[in-house]
């Protein structure tokens, strides 16, 4: 039922990409994305090169193209915006399929579309090959404040519990004949929401009590060593270095 719905981005496996320490992958994805963003939009071949690089990573990680494609849906709002741009932007017009569109807008739309797609695909590959909680360990190693990673870890753990409570409240409402019809019913839903907030808050207090009872003193004990070797950093650097080369070439090209 609820199983897997919080981890549907992750695709378990045991490939070289899966085995890389999370902090290496995080830095690699960030560097790759920066290289992509810094590339001039007119150099289409560079973007094709980036896509080929990602396809290579996906192949090594045994992540099928369909898996990535289905998760690209998050990008839809950007795509809509990018598609609109050629029609609303100013500047000289060009004919595309018999419709006059702004040339500037066309480039701007392509720019957003290409860069967002590559960034999203890289992030999806990262999420597919790294368990969420391991990702948090990586962030912690990259000196992300422990308080933030702890909050995120608790969110992962308790998302299902809170969703379960919300569903029980919905069933309880429905069992007493409540059907949300129009705006006036928002009041009932708002009250349910505040009750859910209170319950979650109280649970937080109880969890904290349980943590104190087992010797918690403000710091989570480090239970897994995710230290990365030089070789692992070097392996993770392949993708961003290749991207950086492409970007440099794109700037140098006449």
């Amino acid at each position: 039922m609820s199983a897997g719905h919080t981890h549907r981005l992750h695709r378990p496996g045991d490939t070289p990409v899966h085995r890389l320490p999370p902090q290496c992958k995080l830095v690699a994805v960030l560097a790759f994305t920066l290289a992509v963003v810094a590339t001039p939009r007119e150099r289409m071949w560079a973007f094709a090169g980036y896509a080929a690089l990602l396809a290579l990573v996906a192949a090594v990680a045994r992540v099928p193209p369909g898996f990535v494609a289905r998760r690209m849906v998050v990008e839809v709002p950007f795509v809509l915006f990018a598609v609109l741009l050629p029609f609303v932007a100013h500047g000289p017009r060009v004919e595309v399929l018999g419709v006059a569109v702004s040339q500037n807008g066309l480039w701007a739309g392509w720019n957003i579309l290409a860069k967002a797609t590559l960034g999203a695909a890289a992030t999806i590959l990262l999420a597919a090959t790294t368990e969420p909680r391991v990702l948090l360990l990586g962030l912690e190693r990259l000196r992300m404040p422990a308080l933030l990673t702890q909050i995120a870890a608790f969110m992962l753990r308790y998302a299902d519990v809170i969703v379960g409570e919300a569903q029980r409240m919905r069933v309880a409402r429905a069992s007493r004949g409540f059907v949300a019809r129009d705006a006036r019913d928002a009041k009932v839903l708002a009250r349910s929401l505040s009750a859910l907030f209170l319950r979650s808050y109280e649970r937080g207090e109880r969890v904290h009590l349980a943590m104190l009872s087992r010797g918690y003193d403000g710091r989570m004990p480090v239970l897994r060593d995710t230290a990365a070797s030089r070789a692992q950093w070097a392996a993770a650097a392949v993708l961003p270095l290749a991207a950086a080369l492409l970007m440099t070439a794109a700037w140098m090209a006449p």
Partner: protein
Amino acid sequence: MTTSTTPSPETAPSLEVRDLAYAYPDGTQALFGVDLTIGRGERVALLGPNGAGKTTLVLHLNGILAGGLGTVSVGGLRIDPGDRKGLREIRRRVGIVFQDPDDQLFMPTVREDVAFGPANLGVRGAELDRRVTGALERVGMLDVADRPPQHLSFGQRRRVAVATVLAMEPEILVLDEPSSNLDPAGRRELAEILLSLDVTVLMVTHDLPYAAELCPRSVILSGGVIAADAPTLELLADGDLLREHRLELPFGFDPAAAAVRLR
């Protein structure tokens, strides 16, 4: 000073509560002078109606609540809320299993959750692995070590919750309503596990047959004081006493028959 002067750690009772009184900051007085001594290896049930102060008492046992009158000592070590190191040792010695396992299991996997307590005590490496494996083995949950707690059944989660405190090698195991929400099979399995453990147990419960099965001795906490302290079956046979403290045997349960079965 943290150690009380009288008994040595070997002969000291697991738990010694003296004249414990406590009022919440809002003025509600919950405990009015509780006296309770539990010897090493004993299994004692703490019975009492809702609002009797059971939870308040439990939270005093490891120093989460403090500041009232009276003293609590665990294995001869007196709780002093001002002494951080002493408090850490107290929390190692007193393992509390809370009522809702979802409150107790907050780490991403079962293994990490069981390791949380001993790791906070500074245990690392092979010794930590040994503690985690040992604790999970004792509750029969070693095969789910790498699963996230939210994917376990309720009964499994309660057993893992017991393992999380066993890994701290406690002097006394304190269970808050251990049989609540368990189905009959889960209830029996937990009883078998608790009986197999070689550790002092204080079990807070409304489940009188469970108390009869697991704990030779029972105390009734009512109105913030210990109102009765006797062998469980004797206590359960005293209908007037039970009625007086809003306790009731389930339909069809006969303490005399239970006594015969427990022989």
